[in-house]
């Protein structure tokens, strides 16, 4: 195979004259991926927790709205959702709000659209995990909480959610890993995250192997850290004497 390996390419200044090296580009993409995924994850957790709880409440209106929310965000391809958020929604906003969005820094526009898109897409999935966690509790737990004189919100707060959250740490780990991987889709609207920087490097240096190996290693690195972090969380919240407990 006549391929000229050149790992030194990362140390070369870029051809655009922006006083960065190609490594600098990769680092920028790496940071962008992390900032985007983490901010989207926090929103997804908060929104997903609320929607997931609402799906299990007795009130038909609330659970119906929550179900509709989940189905909408779960059943439209992520890529389409991203285009909607980036190209369509700004046009549908009240005119002054839409214009304000279009006049901000283009990178910020890409970031915001990507963040909202990833956050809401993932929140629908988190909501499903939260719901299944609550539904997998023994039904008597809710009755036991209510029988003690807790109100329904107190029963959720003190009895059901603490156990449900523990049960769903493993599936949540998958969702957390997914959000980093899904963030690569955001390169399609021009956001210079890790995958986009990898492509850009190919265009400028004609060293695709080094470039994509570096991107692969960077994603793996992120996900190994997430996995160990979540494993620690799992151990930390483990209940003595319970399934999988000490």
């Amino acid at each position, binding site marked *: 195979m006549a391929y000229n390996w050149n790992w030194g390419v990362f140390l070369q200044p870029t051809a655009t004259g922006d006083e960065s090296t190609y490594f600098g580009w990769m680092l920028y993409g790496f940071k962008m991926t992390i900032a985007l995924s983490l901010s989207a994850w926090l929103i997804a957790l908060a929104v997903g927790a609320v929607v997931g709880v609402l799906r299990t409440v007795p009130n038909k209106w609330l659970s119906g709205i929550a179900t509709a929310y989940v189905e909408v965000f779960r059943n439209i391809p992520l890529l389409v959702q991203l285009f909607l958020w980036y190209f369509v929604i700004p046009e549908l906003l009240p005119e002054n709000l839409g214009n304000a969005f279009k006049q901000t820094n283009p990178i910020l526009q890409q970031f915001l659209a990507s963040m909202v898109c990833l956050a809401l897409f993932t929140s629908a999935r988190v909501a499903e995990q939260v719901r299944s966690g609550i539904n997998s509790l023994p039904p008597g737990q809710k009755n036991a909480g209510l*029988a003690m004189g807790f109100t329904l919100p*107190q029963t959720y707060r003190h009895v059901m959610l603490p156990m449900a959250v523990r049960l769903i740490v493993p599936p949540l780990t998958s969702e957390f890993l997914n959000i980093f991987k899904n963030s690569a889709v955001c390169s399609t609207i021009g956001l210079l995250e890790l995958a986009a920087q990898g492509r850009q490097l190919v265009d400028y240096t004609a060293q695709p192997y080094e470039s994509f190996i570096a991107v692969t290693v960077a994603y793996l690195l992120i996900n190994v850290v997430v996995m160990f972090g979540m494993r620690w969380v799992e151990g930390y919240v483990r209940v003595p004497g319970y399934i999988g407990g000490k």
Partner: protein
Amino acid sequence: MISMNKVSKHYGSFQVLTDCTTQVHKGEVIVVCGPSGSGKSTLIKCVNGLEPFQSGEIIVNGVSVGDPKTNLSKLRSTVGMVFQNFELFPHMSIIDNLCIAQIKVLGRSQEQAREKGHKLLDRVGLRAQAEKYPGQLSGGQQQRVAIARALAMDPICMLFDEPTSALDPEMVNEVLDVMTELAQEGMTMMCVTHEMGFARRVASRVIFMDQGRIVEDDSKEAFFEHARSERAQQFLAKILHH
């Protein structure tokens, strides 16, 4: 203390309870028995509003359970309940299981709640287990904790929903002993149970249910010596021969 008048309940077209009427006076111990599916557990869960019912009336300590204006949480905090599967909160230590509702519902201080909790654990013989978690105790121990947890709220009466059915045979007695003691101290109790020995020892009255109806409601002597309905006689013949 508890008065039921023509309570009926159905799930769709399936009738679970039909015109159930009875009274429980202060200090009485009522044992509710009957074949499975006869509506015993449903009946007892109607008393503290865990199961809604469509018609009839239940009055607990002067408060109507079915009235939409009733503050059910407040009512429930005065009625202790013990479940077949214990239903301790697995993520809390034993003592926290006893304290949480005292603090969050009754507004007691942490110290008051813990003192009360330790006293009750002492009473059910489990003081040494206070810092353990429910998953680390045996079934019998968990059920004794569950009784102590209900007592921590200073209930005016106690409901037991098959408290020994999920236990290994050797652990049944430790739970029945606690219940017997409680009955002898004058607690008003309504117990769904198949433990006829317990019924003979402490029951004031026995209610026998079949297909959602109260078929017998009589003193324990009358029930065990000469049950009137054929269904109750069959039931007794089956379970007493073992």
